[in-house]
């Protein structure tokens, strides 16, 4: 089956009110529907999704509630268990003062210098 690389660059897009990152949700859902051989490359601010110490709190706007804000690193770990491979752009992590030790163990760093060869290994590139 064809290999799909999902590049997630836009971070925190409606994730509070959806209680999910909308791109990761769909990637996970279609994996469950039989689209296997998917990978995710986190770039830009989305590299923060892999930080393992995230503790989002519930929000209330008067009587309106966001009771279950998603824990993005846990969503990534759940996808990893389903066989979705996880990568991050190493320079984007370093630029944000994040160390590899801050990240979940399921993600693998890719250097910008090897990005072209890395991307070339996939049949489909979906940039979110």
């Amino acid at each position, binding site marked *: 089956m064809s290999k799909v690389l999902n590049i997630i660059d*836009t971070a925190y*897009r*409606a994730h509070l009110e959806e209680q999910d990152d*909308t*791109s990761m949700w*769909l990637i996970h*859902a*279609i994996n*469950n*529907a*039989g*689209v296997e051989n998917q990978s995710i490359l986190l770039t830009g601010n989305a590299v923060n999704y892999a930080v393992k110490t995230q503790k989002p709190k519930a929000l209330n706007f008067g009587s309106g509630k966001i009771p279950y804000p998603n824990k993005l690193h846990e969503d990534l770990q759940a996808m990893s268990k389903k066989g979705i491979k996880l990568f991050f752009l190493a320079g984007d992590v370093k630029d944000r003062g994040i160390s590899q030790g801050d990240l979940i163990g399921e993600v693998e760093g890719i250097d910008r210098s090897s990005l072209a060869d890395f991307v070339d290994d996939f049949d*489909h590139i*979906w*940039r*979110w």
Partner: protein
Amino acid sequence: MSKTLNILLMDPPYESSNTATAFRIMESAINKGHNITVFAYEGATSLTLKHQKGHPNPVKDTTAAEEKHPLTKDFVTGLFGLAREKGTSFRWVNCGFCVDERGVGEWDEGPERGGPPQFAEMYKNADQTLIIPTSR
């Protein structure tokens, strides 16, 4: 030989030039005899909402009749018609979860309701899939 292009759209109407660009790609592909499948995700499910209507333009001092404000539902209807005329296939699937959370479930004939399994099927049956996300 005709091919099938699968497109995922995410932007709501009147927010981004992504929408017009996507419709241009669809029209161009249909005119060249290719088949199109569209998965409208998140805000893009409002593109086909039946209750869209034009309005006057007070800046230009035009009435609604004079302004003839473009409606995205008409673009979609137009692409269905163009595909019929050209003998190609055009399929538009609105994400049902996205429809429900927005209350935009009424549309004219053509679009259908679906979800991730339909998008998975469309991907598998297409020659290529183009993701056009909301970028910020």
